[in-house]
């Protein structure tokens, strides 16, 4: 009776089987715990931001916070209008984009369409190196190297100015634009290029008229991700852009970004639990919402690009 024999084997192996099940269970639990840690951390951070901000908004109205044009929580009389900080962040994001978008897109097009493989093999790792330079290095480069040049060219410029921050942040976000844009450009199907070439298109026609438009949404997404990085960038702007919250569009004045303000308060003597201290949570929350929405939009666009070609 082979069936009974098989059952006996099954019963006999039950002990081992149990051990295996237990082991599988433990493994499952450990892996789940790993996943839960990151989720809890995220939720925790958002909760802390929200709760502390709520405390802050008991004393300062949301309206005043969002529309006030003066920011001086650490000095009397106190003002809690985030617009000057927002303006500083906007200046840095806009200025760095002006530098990074043309250079980045140009590099991406060059790498994907024009560069021979040898050149690509050299340039791509170099860009990785650029991406790996610590932002604090960019920060003091801005102060000791870029800022003097700007002062030379524009004598009216202050020592700490938005322009120098914009330039170094522009180079910091360059690798994001180049590597993402290059990916989407290269993912444009070869058949589209061949179709265009077969119609008597020149390389320029193919690149400008077919490849770049076909990759446009992905390129846009790379811009958004890069801008999100510029908005969140902290060290370089803290060092280079100054600490003067100011509602200005001049690149040659000292300004302050949201991130730089948070650094200023976090490392300073502001006692915990005070209204001044809580401002950083409100600013942090604003920053978080801002970068999160940029990231979400960019990811949404990138996913749509992937669907189109898969």
């Amino acid at each position, binding site marked *: 009776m082979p069936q009974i024999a098989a059952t006996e084997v099954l019963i006999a192996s039950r002990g081992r089987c149990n051990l295996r099940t237990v082991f599988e269970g433990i493994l499952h639990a450990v892996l789940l715990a790993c996943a839960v840690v990151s989720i809890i951390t995220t939720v925790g951070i958002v909760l802390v931001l929200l709760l502390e901000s709520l405390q802050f908004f008991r004393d300062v109205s949301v309206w005043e916070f969002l529309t006030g044009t003066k920011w001086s929580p650490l000095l009397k009389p106190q003002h809690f209008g985030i617009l000057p900080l927002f303006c500083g962040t906007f200046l840095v994001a806009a200025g760095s984009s002006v530098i990074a978008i043309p250079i980045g897109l140009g590099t991406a097009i060059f790498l994907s369409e024009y560069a021979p493989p040898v050149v690509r093999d050299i340039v791509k790792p170099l860009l990785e190196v650029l991406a790996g330079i610590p932002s604090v290095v960019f920060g003091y480069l801005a102060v000791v190297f870029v800022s003097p040049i700007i002062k030379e060219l524009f004598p009216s410029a202050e020592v700490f100015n938005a322009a120098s921050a914009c330039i170094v942040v522009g180079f910091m976000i360059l690798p994001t634009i180049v590597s993402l844009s290059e990916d989407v450009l290269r993912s444009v199907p070869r058949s589209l290029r*061949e179709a265009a*070439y*077969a*119609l*008597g298109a020149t390389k320029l*026609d193919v690149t400008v*008229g077919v490849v770049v438009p*076909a990759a446009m949404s992905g390129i846009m997404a790379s811009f958004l991700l890069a801008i999100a990085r510029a908005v969140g960038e902290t060290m370089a702007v803290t060092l280079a852009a100054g600490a003067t919250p100011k509602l200005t569009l001049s690149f040659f004045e000292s300004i302050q970004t949201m991130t730089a303000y948070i650094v200023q308060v976090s490392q300073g003597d502001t006692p915990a639990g005070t209204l001044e201290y809580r401002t950083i949570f409100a600013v942090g929350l604003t920053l978080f919402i801002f970068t999160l929405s940029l990231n979400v939009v960019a990811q949404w666009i990138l996913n749509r690009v992937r669907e189109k070609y898969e």
Partner: protein
Amino acid sequence: MSEAAPIPLRVTTPTVRQPAVARNVTELSERAKKVAAIDVDFFYGTHQALHGISLEVPENCVTALIGPSGCGKSTFLRCLNRMNDMIDETALKGQILLDGIDIYQRGTDVVELRKRVGMVFQKSNPFPKSIYENVAYGPRVAGIKKRAVLDEIVEKCLQQSALWDEVENRLDDSALQLSGGQQQRLCIARALATNPDVLLMDEPASALDPKSTAAIEDLIFELKSNYTIVIVTHNMQQAARVSDQTAFFYEGHLVEVGSTTDMFTNPGEKKTEDYITGRFG
């Protein structure tokens, strides 16, 4: 299939059976030579894909290139508009003449060549643009800017490719919304828009259903009065239906070339016979 009409026979004069290369096809050979390959060798790196191909393509005829996968027929087709230039480390020896002028000689304007020798690919590859812009692309890169002229070209080419009636009212819709067969006919219209002399087709119907295939074949038959067509196909029946001249490729060699009727009824080589009767391939 109760009312299936008898398939109209596209008769070309049968010729006396002769040895493969020397086979002389009277009617075809009397026509002007639009394209002529003379002793063409082609290399991918060190791999030789074509061996001494000599083939003449008569004007306003359909020439079918047949043969098993990897036999070099697509490679040969892509030599005719120098599409292989874009693949790194390829080399061609020999001559390919278009109207008697070697297209591989120094100083050939490849862009100009490709305007004269259009191409339709195996997989329909419309640009992710509107139907109108797809057809207008060729004329636009050729420098035509006037909207009225472009409108006229677009309408004419879409009519020639038998697509006009289906898309007339939605020229601004994305070309990607069309069905597979429609997309392929759009690609043909796009190729016609540069007003080429020669149309190369690389298995244009292989990804299509029978109905769309029939539409494309009818279209090829219509087009040959104005264009010289070279078509690569895996489908023996298709080659028999649409072409006037057939060239059989095998392992990079041109085994046999001759008028289609002749070749299919009376193949000159054992290999040809085995292939077209489906014994291998």
